[in-house]
């Protein structure tokens, strides 16, 4: 594990940049635990102060310190992304491995459902969810809903690997030695697809955080939990751009862009590492 990390840092520029960005974002999120102000309190500092030595990133029109508010926001946003990614990984793994290994009508039915979830535009569906749930729409509930909608693309990827694993000799050996389907999938096939699961986790987090920011900006989430989208929502409510309070919008946008680019670069470099051909090319070996 450490050797892999060392190789990635040594040979891969994308990984180095991505790692640096994510470390900054994680430090920001970690700082929320030592924040002098509780996240929900308003008017704890003078409002509308531009960035200065006393308030590094300025203060909002609601009397909150942008820096400390941002630490809570990025922590909640990341937690949300991780929740969705973890839940949807489970669904994607079960569907992908089962469809790939079983084949036949199970594969056809699962992939039909799978393709449907890839094709259907999910944003209107999420808005419909908010419309009927209104105030009952909490962040954990939204995470469960998004996990239930966002597994399809990765399930297809996992299935394609499972299809090739099925024809390998060790699968037949384990089947003949009396292992049941779920044992073969969890003990024999799972280790082979784990690298893909890791790299798709990053992309899935980008997807879910992106949608959460969008929904929150429109006010379609629990706006009292501070998130990056929630901060932009409140800034828009106070017409921060027109009033010239640019730091209220600029810093959340900057931090979330760092998160997106960082996660994307980590996913890309991991994908490249998984493929031995491109890994060798990068290390200067034979093409």
């Amino acid at each position, binding site marked *: 594990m450490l050797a892999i990390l060392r190789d990635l840092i040594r040979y891969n520029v*994308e990984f180095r940049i991505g790692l640096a960005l994510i470390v900054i974002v994680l430090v920001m999120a970690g700082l929320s635990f030592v924040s002098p102000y509780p996240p929900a309190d308003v008017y704890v500092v003078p409002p509308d102060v531009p960035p200065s030595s006393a308030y590094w990133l300025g203060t909002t029109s609601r009397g909150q310190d942008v820096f400390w508010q941002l630490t809570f926001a990025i922590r909640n946003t990341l937690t949300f992304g991780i929740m969705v990614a973890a839940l949807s990984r489970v669904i994607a793994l079960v569907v992908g491995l089962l469809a790939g290994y079983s084949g036949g009508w199970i594969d056809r039915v699962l992939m*039909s*459902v799978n*393709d*449907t979830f*890839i*094709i*259907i*535009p*999910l*944003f*209107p*569906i999420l*808005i*419909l*969810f*908010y*419309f*009927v*749930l*209104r105030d*009952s729409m909490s962040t954990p509930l939204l995470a469960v809903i998004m996990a239930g909608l966002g597994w399809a*693309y990765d399930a297809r990827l996992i299935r394609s690997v499972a299809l090739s694993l099925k024809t390998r000799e060790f699968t037949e050996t384990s089947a003949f030695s009396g292992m049941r389907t779920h044992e073969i999938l969890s003990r024999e096939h799972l280790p082979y697809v784990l690298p893909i699961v890791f790299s798709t986790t990053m992309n899935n987090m*980008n997807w879910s*955080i*992106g*949608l959460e*920011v*969008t929904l929150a*900006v*429109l006010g*379609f989430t629990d706006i009292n939990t501070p998130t990056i989208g929630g901060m*932009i929502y409140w800034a828009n409510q106070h017409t921060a*751009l027109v009033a010239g309070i640019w730091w209220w*919008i600029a810093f959340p*946008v900057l931090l*979330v*862009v760092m998160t*997106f*680019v960082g*996660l*994307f*670069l980590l996913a*890309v470099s991991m994908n490249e590492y998984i493929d031995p051909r491109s890994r060798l090319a990068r290390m200067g070996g034979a*093409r």
Partner: protein
Amino acid sequence: MRAYPAYVAKRLVQFAVVVFIGVNLAFLITHASPIDPVEQSISAVTSFGSTSPDAIAAMRESLQELYGLKGSLTEQYITFWSRVLRGDFGPSLSAFPTPVSTLIWRALPWTAGLLITSTVITWVLGNLLGGLAGYYQRSRTLKVLGVVAMGIHPIPYYIVALILLVVFGFLWPVLPITGGAAMNLQQGWNWPFVSSVLLHSILPALSLILIGLGSWFLGMRSLVSNIVTEDYVVYGEIAGLDSRRILASYVMRNALAPQVTGLAMSLGGIFNGAVITEKVFGYPGVGTLLVDAVYAGDYGLVLGVTTVSILGVSLGVLVIDLLYPLIDPRVELR
């Protein structure tokens, strides 16, 4: 050509499955929710002043009729499907008594125009540049372009639209930032109106293009850089073929098929982006209609737009799938 009918039949079945699951999902979400849209509308109406119980009962009756929430769940399900098939979602509550379908038909050309134009531009431009970047790997300009694509591609639509809005609306106000066309013009095929529409569509289209470009660029680049190591490309080079001809007819031609499949698979995501982009720029399409309907609590309109977007996107995917054999003739041999 024998396999084409079978291919079409398979695609049509998949289209039917998508629409069936999508419409059922919409029914399930609206009917399994703990909140009754009828009671919600009533409480919104009666929150100002007192209303007699008789009037409330009459209102409940007609709202249930209107929303298709009358009778048992099975009856409601049948009503729901018959409404979807007829394209009739009742009158809109926020723009009473205009039917929901009229509102959607009015918004649809805007969204379709914006979406189709920007998607075609994005796909063609992204694949062309990506193909060049994969083939001429030493070019410095194309390398820089790759870094830019990697930097912009992962950012969500809303953030890019917001940045463009700030740049062209506040810092350097040269482009109109809201609406679909100037208000004071006669709508129709006259130059002032058409030019106004084009001018207003620059920013929404640009934000859709900026984000979309990255994924086609990166995808095409990695496909092409894998294909150039194939034997037939090396053979073509040794045979002294023009490098432009190798790139166009041998390399990119083969990389095109997965990119067309990719387009079909990402159409839903592009539509999601268009919804929020429209809202940011106040563009009069179905995205703005949907978000405003939620703010206004207009049940029929939200349900109508959701169903129409599911139908529209799956129809788009079907069209791409049916055209796919033109790009990849191998489909007909399977």
